[in-house]
Structure formats: C-alpha cells, structure tokens
C-alpha cells in the first residue's frame, strides 16, 4: 500500500502578523514557520497505518524553499520520502490552481492508495485544497475523519466523519482522500534520531520544468496568479476596540453580577 500526505508550512500561531509594504500579504522577516498543526494529525495517521501494514508514506508539499523544513519534520515523524514542488511560479496560487498542480503531480506519481490531508490550513482557513485535489484526480473523499479503518485486502477504507449534529460512517474504495479532524490521534514528537534520519531520506524537487512536461499536463497558464481565480487585494490588521467595562466582583460578587445583568439588558440590549 502507498500513502501520500499533503502538508503545508504556516506561520507559527503565536507570530505577530503585520501587513507587508504592498499591503496584500504579511511581513515574513521575523516569522517562525511551522508545520501546519492540522497536518501533524494527517502525518501521524499515515505513519500509524504504515506501522500496522508496512505501507510506504510519501510526503508532498508545494511552497517556497523554506517549506522543506515542514517536509523534513513530516519525514522525521516517519514519512519515507518527500516531494517538494517549489518555484517562484508556484507562489501565490489560490486553492483552485493548487488543486490542479497537486492533483496532476499525484496522478503522475501513480499507484497511490490513500491520500491524507489536514482539515484546514490555519493561515487561510480555506479548507478546500484537499477536495480540489480529490476532484482533479477523480477519487472520493471523506473529510473531518475522527476514525479511519483501512482494509488493504478489499482495498477499502471506513471513515467516521464529523457532520453537522453528529457523525457519519462512510466506506470508500481506494484510491481515496481523507482529511483528519484534530483529536483523531496524538501526533508524535520527532525524535532526535528521527530528525537525523530525515535529512538523508530521498526528496524529489520539482520546479516548473518538472511539472511542465506532457507527462503531467500542466501548462504555464495553470500556475501562479495566472492559473488562479481569486487573489488577495489587501490585508488589514483589525484593532480591537471593545468597551472594556470590567466590574470588580472580588468582594461583592452578587452586586457585580446584578450590575452586569443590568448592563447586558439595558445597555447592550442583548439579554
């Protein structure tokens, strides 16, 4: 069995976000980059299946040179090899274009049984790349998995997914794509030997030439801004302007509570 995990690098959640001089992106100088936290669950799930079935796990990312760190982290967690699609022409792609590029590359790799992805990229919170990838390849998907049971013999996977108001169990034939919900597992920390080993694991680098070929069928127009359908015009950092009326209830809890109830009724008109 062959499993592929798509991962993305993202600014640390603690990072202070400032608009860049063009106003359409963020200043990246002082940002610490991490593996998208949701993707850790995806990698962990794939590695657990590998430990049970001996499957091979390939990690794929699209992103700038620095993204290799996210790739190596996933390899240190147990991935076998990596594919890094990188080049300036891949910068600024929207989910539509990303879906085409990632989907095309996966088709070219061939013989993948399962694809895992995070539920969303915490940066954009778009949660649409994985589904666009599944559509591009023409395979079924189950999103927000809280449980995954693989049956290699019958080439099917049973997925319990979070749905509105409950959960649903779905059975998908290989090849299939699954996005995982937080809490499906406990992602492992990469061990020091794991990190050392990850540096030596094979990693294919794909530039625009690598992906231009007939083999993959992606042309220049499908890349970057040209292949995208939406773009970020501007970014504003909202200032928090709230009224900050804090009552002291340390000595007189009941009085403060009565005052708050009154404010909510009469001033905020909310209860």
């Amino acid at each position, binding site marked *: 069995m062959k499993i592929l995990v798509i991962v993305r690098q993202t*600014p640390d*959640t603690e990072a202070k*976000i400032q608009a860049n001089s063009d106003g359409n992106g*963020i200043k990246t100088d002082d940002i610490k980059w991490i593996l998208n936290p*949701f993707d850790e669950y995806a990698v962990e799930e794939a590695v657990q299946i590998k430990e049970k079935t001996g499957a091979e796990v390939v990690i794929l990312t699209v992103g700038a040179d620095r993204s290799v760190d996210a790739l190596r982290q996933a390899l240190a967690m147990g991935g076998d090899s990596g594919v890094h699609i990188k080049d300036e022409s891949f910068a600024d792609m929207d*989910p*539509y274009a990303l*879906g085409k590029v990632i989907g095309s590359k996966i088709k070219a790799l061939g013989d993948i049984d399962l694809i895992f992805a995070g539920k969303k990229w915490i*940066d*954009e*919170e*778009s*949660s*649409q790349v994985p*589904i666009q990838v*599944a*559509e591009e390849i023409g395979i*079924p998907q189950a*999103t927000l998995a809280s449980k995954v049971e693989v049956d290699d013999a019958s080439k099917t996977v049973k997925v319990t997914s*979070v*749905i*509105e*108001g*409950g959960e*649903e*169990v*779905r059975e*998908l*034939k290989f090849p*299939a794509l699954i996005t995982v919900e*937080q809490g499906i597992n406990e992602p492992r920390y990469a061990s020091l030997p794991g990190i050392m080993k990850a540096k030596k694991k094979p990693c294919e680098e794909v530039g625009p030439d690598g992906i231009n070929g007939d083999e993959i069928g992606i042309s220049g127009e499908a890349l970057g801004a040209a292949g*995208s*359908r*939406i*773009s*970020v*015009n501007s*970014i*504003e950092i909202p200032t*928090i302007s*709230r009224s*900050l*009326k*804090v*009552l*002291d*209830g*340390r000595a007189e*809890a*009941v009085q*403060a*509570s*009565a005052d*708050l*109830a009154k*404010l*909510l*009724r009469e001033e905020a008109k*909310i*209860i």
Partner: protein
Amino acid sequence: MSEIWVLVDKAQDVVRNVTYEGLAAALKLKEKNGATVCAIYVGDNAGAIEADLGKYGAEKFYKVENPALSDFNPSLYATALSEVIKKHNPDIVIGGNTLKNQDYLPRVASRTSAGLSLDSIDVDINSSSALEIKKYKYSGKSIATIAFHDVKPMIATVRLNAFKPIEGSGSPEVIAESVELPADENYKVVETKIIPKERPELTEADKIVSGGRGMANGENFQIVYDLADSIGAGAGASRAAVDSGWVPYEMQVGQTGKVVSPNLYVAVGISGSVQHYAGMGSSKVIVAINKDPDAPIFQKCDYGICGDLFDILPALTDEIKKLG
C-alpha cells in the same frame, strides 16, 4: 440578465436561517449589479418552501431533485450543481459556510473552473464588476479583501450569522431541473448518527457561554450550562478544558476548534489566548469572567467581572432570571 444563486439549506422540512442570510448577501450584491436573485435547492426533495424563499428575496427558485441525493455524497452533489451551473451560467453562487457546502463546493469550483472563497464575513461588487469578499486570515489576526478574477461563476460561502435576513414579500418563479446522476461505486454511506443536542449548535448559536481551565473539572461545567440555559445559549469551551477531558472536542472554540460569531459570547475562566480569540473574536458582545485582573481577555472584552467564577456564575444566573 445575470443571476446570483443562493444555495438552499434545509434541516428536515424547514429552511435553515443560513439560507436567508445568504439571500441577504445576494440582495446586497444585487444593489450593485442589478442581477436576479435566485434560490437553488439540490437534494432529494425540496418540499413546499418557495413561499419562504420568496419572502426573503428569491425571485426565481431552481429545484434540482433526485432520489440519488438522499444521502449526502459530495461527488454526486457536485455533479448535480455543476450541471445546472453550466446550463444557466449564473455570475455568482452564494452558500452558507456549512460543513456540507464546505464538503462539495470545492469540487464544483474545480468542475466549473470557478473561483471559490469560504467563510466570507462581507461581500461586495468591485469596480471591475467582480465579486469581492472579506474574510479572516491568519487565525483571526487579519481581515483580507479577496477579489475574484473575471471568470464566472464566482462562488463564495458566508459565515453563519454574518448577514441579517431581510424580510420582504414576493413569490419566486419555480424552475424544476433534472440531472442524471451515475451510481457511485466508490463512496457509500454506511451509517448516519445524529446526536440530539440539548443546546443550540455553536456555529449557529445567537449566544454562547464557554468555560476554560478555570472550571477546574468536568462536573463544574454544570454552572456554565445553567447560565447557558437561562439565556438560551450554546455551551462551549477552551482547548485547555477539552484537552483535560472535561468536555468533548465538539465544544472547543478557537483556531483549532469551532469559529463562532454569536451576538453574545461569555468567556468563563478563560484567559483569552490568541488561539481562543481566533475562534470568537468576531462575536458582537464579549463578556469575561476571570479572577485575574491581568488576564488578557480583559483587554478584549466589552464587559467583565473580575472575581471568582464559582461565586459570580451562580449569582449572574440568578440575577438574569430575576430580570425575567
């Protein structure tokens, strides 16, 4: 004449509010581009809902009914919607940011070569006559304005509670469309479990009371539920409370939990981390109860009480009940 489509979301036999919120977004766009506002239902049975849709602004109502759509299969839903989009070429398609729409609209975008942006908090038509939306980016730390390129259709979902339904009168012209759906051998629904909820679903709730690490254990959440029930609110939690095993993950609000925007959010024993704020920062009124006067939440709230939550919460519930 160009059209704006709004996806109809139904729970059992009632049209969900999010549909009317979508229609409100479409009416805002119509003011700029004069397009016809249309509702579109994709599913196994629409029922008699056209009057409700007309009341909230739909001038036309496309009905795509097919028994194969009784279970939700993202691929079949995408086929159905994509076929009618290709036939009628709407300029813009709006849907609520529900899990179902998130699960199949990316496929529709891919099939109809459309741009798609999820979870918009505002919509507009820009000077190039294209759709332009606003949405949170970088975990609620920034708001991005995203412009669609001039490729139709342009598809966007709107955050629940971000638009207020606009009531009017009208009755839409009903157009029934049929689509052929191939059997899908690759995807099968084995079991659907709807777990009855005692309180409103967080993403739709008008009010929410959440507890954090300050609750100290699971049993103590009872006083959070008491306050919630006294005002008809949903009940949420911080990740610290979820990770401690006090309450289930589905109650988690924040960057890696649910993103909510109620009219009232009460944070109890929650410090106000950036990650928690990312999930509730767009709430209209934020109330904090915390014993630490320096807790960051006090810099991000409208009202608050500095004090011990075990004294304040029961008292607050009482006082609210007294107000009637």
